[in-house]
């Protein structure tokens, strides 16, 4: 079922993981002798079934993959230091690009009297909304895992934070930019033109540019809020077509090259929690170097009917309006869209849940559906189903290139 190339890949990756683990265990046994750590993780088997014929040569109709995630913490005896490790990897039988491994987290934390320090690779989540994550800019998306932008690659950082009466203040220094990775030729959910390996950068230092960020966050009475600023390499590239005489994999000799500009982005996130209502807003102001200033916002609410109709279940409704004034090359998929979502949590012994979502472009005819079902089979086994449907896409939009990529995904996980 798996190719020999794939087996070599796995062997190399296992070697890498072993080395990383060895370093961690050496550090931990030296500095944290007194306390046993604790780990958790899962292994998962997944298949994706694409029911329309592929648009581009070489693309798969179905794939099978195996994934694993492992997380480990160890605190010292006084509880003022921690080391943490989180590893993720996937091996895909069709798409070599989707076979990937990532250090999601690998850091050392120390708490001092007045401040705290994190050094290493971390995952940071900022924001309050559900359908897009505008203010969440620290980590690069792991697009190979999911289109929803909620899976992230680990980001190297030095983070200093201090908790004051008037809020939490965090400073970030971010060396080591992570490029977005895209499916390979065999993979679905990719544009028609191949994307070349080498990206272009606005900064002369390319991916060595050191980014920084600062954030203030606070909460009182019904309000949770944050203000943030990021300066550095934009996480979302845009693409220029390039031509090469000797051609790429396709006939035209045309391919796409990612370009990462330098940006300054300020963000505001706000949530008011009133009874069963969560009122949410995120807004950003984005200044791209040598270009100009743009803004984007998402505004909406989440409402939950608890113990609906005398059952144990809760029905949650999410409505969010997305707006973004970037156009042309920089246009985002959520430039003028309405997202509607409903979540039914059964609150049964197996944690059964259904999540349905529709995203409607209000300017163009594009419409996207997503349905997710999940439940535990036992306390340690979990089954997840996910269907994504690009039901309508106008032919001058990005989604048009994915119009045949509707899929059903089935994943079975064993937690340990």
């Amino acid at each position: 079922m798996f190719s020999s190339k794939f087996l070599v890949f796995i062997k190399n990756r296992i070697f890498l993981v072993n080395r990383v683990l060895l370093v961690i265990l050496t550090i931990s046994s030296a500095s944290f002798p007194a306390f046993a750590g604790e780990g958790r993780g899962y292994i998962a088997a997944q298949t994706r079934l694409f029911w329309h014929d592929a648009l581009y040569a070489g693309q798969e109709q179905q794939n099978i993959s195996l994934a694993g995630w492992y997380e480990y913490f160890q605190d010292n005896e006084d509880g003022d230091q921690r080391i943490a490790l989180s590893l993720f990897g996937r091996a895909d039988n069709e798409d070599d690009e989707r076979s990937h491994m990532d250090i999601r987290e690998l850091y050392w934390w120390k708490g001092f009297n007045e401040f705290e320090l994190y050094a290493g690779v971390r995952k940071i989540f900022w924001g309050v909304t559900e359908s897009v994550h505008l203010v969440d800019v620290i980590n690069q998306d792991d697009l190979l895992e999911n289109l929803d932008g909620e899976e992230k690659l680990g980001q190297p950082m030095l983070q200093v934070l201090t908790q004051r009466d008037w809020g939490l203040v965090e400073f970030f220094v971010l060396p080591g930019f992570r490029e977005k990775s895209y499916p390979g030729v065999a993979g679905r959910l990719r544009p028609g033109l191949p994307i070349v390996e080498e990206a272009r950068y606005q900064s002369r230092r390319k991916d060595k540019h050191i980014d920084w960020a600062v954030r203030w966050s606070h909460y009182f009475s019904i309000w949770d809020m944050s203000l943030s600023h990021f300066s550095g390499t934009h996480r979302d590239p845009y693409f220029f077509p390039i031509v090469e005489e000797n051609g790429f994999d396709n006939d035209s000799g045309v391919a796409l090259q990612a370009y990462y500009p330098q940006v300054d982005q300020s963000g505001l996130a706000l949530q008011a929690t009133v009874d069963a209502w969560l009122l949410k807003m995120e807004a950003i102001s984005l200044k791209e170097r040598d270009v100009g200033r743009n803004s984007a916002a998402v505004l909406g609410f989440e409402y939950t009917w608890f113990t609906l109709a005398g059952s144990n279940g809760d029905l949650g409704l999410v409505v969010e309006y997305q707006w973004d004034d970037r156009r042309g090359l920089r246009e985002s998929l959520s430039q003028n869209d309405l997202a509607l979502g409903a979540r039914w949590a059964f609150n049964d012994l197996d944690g059964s849940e259904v999540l349905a979502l529709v995203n409607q472009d209000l300017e163009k005819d594009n419409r996207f559906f997503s349905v997710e079902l999940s439940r535990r089979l036992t306390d340690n086994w979990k089954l997840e189903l996910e269907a994504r449907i690009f039901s309508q896409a106008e032919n001058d939009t990005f989604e048009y290139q994915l119009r045949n990529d509707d899929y059903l995904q089935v994943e079975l996980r064993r937690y340990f």
Partner: protein
Amino acid sequence: MFKLNKFVFVTAFLASAYVGAQSAEERGLAIAREVDVRDAGFQDATVDITMYLRDKQGNERARNMRNKIMEVEGDGDKSMIIFDNPGDVKGTAFLSFTHKEGPDDQWLFLPALKRIKKISSSNKAGAFMNSEFAFEDIASQEVEKYTYRFLREDEFEGRKVFVNESDPVDPKSGYSKIDVFVDQERYIPLKVEFYDRGGRHKKTLTLTGYQSYLDKYWRANTWTMENHQTGKSTVLKMNNWTFRNGFSESDFNKNSLSRAK
């Protein structure tokens, strides 16, 4: 007959007025206050909890979690719960600030996304972790959240008790009334009867295995909640109590929630 009854009633009324000089409401409130006062001053605590969920057929599943609690002067307690199973829930943490008046504040930490989400606390009547305990049953009990009415003196399991009716102030509560059987000597609840919004007896909680900590603070190690309407039950086992760990505000905020494990 009529006259006799009336005579007995008037005599009883006069006697009770003379003895107590207190209305049933006043006496009920006084008992609730005494329960609260006797438990005040523990400062903070941690406890390991195993929750056994049982259905009518006797199938059982265990849920493990750890809880830490801190008293807040002039307001309700702050509390953090970290869940240890099932697998997909492990590492999820729940932070709550109970308030004497107004809605509580609650946040969830979702470890897979490293996301902290402020959630609605209006789900009082909803089931906690699919158990027979509602969120309001496990929240810190503040005197101000109920009005009271002393019902009677009684005996329960050989101990003298006050039976005190508590009526939830919040219309979102799932209960019309709650009868609490309070031990007369130690001022701790031994049994609690919950009545649904239709006035039907829905659940009974029995608290057993009381031990005193720091010579003063009584904690039950077994909480048994039986649902008479569904036949299901939940048993909470509380182990490894530790008191006065020196917690501060900084152990109960969104920053510490993000480090919960």
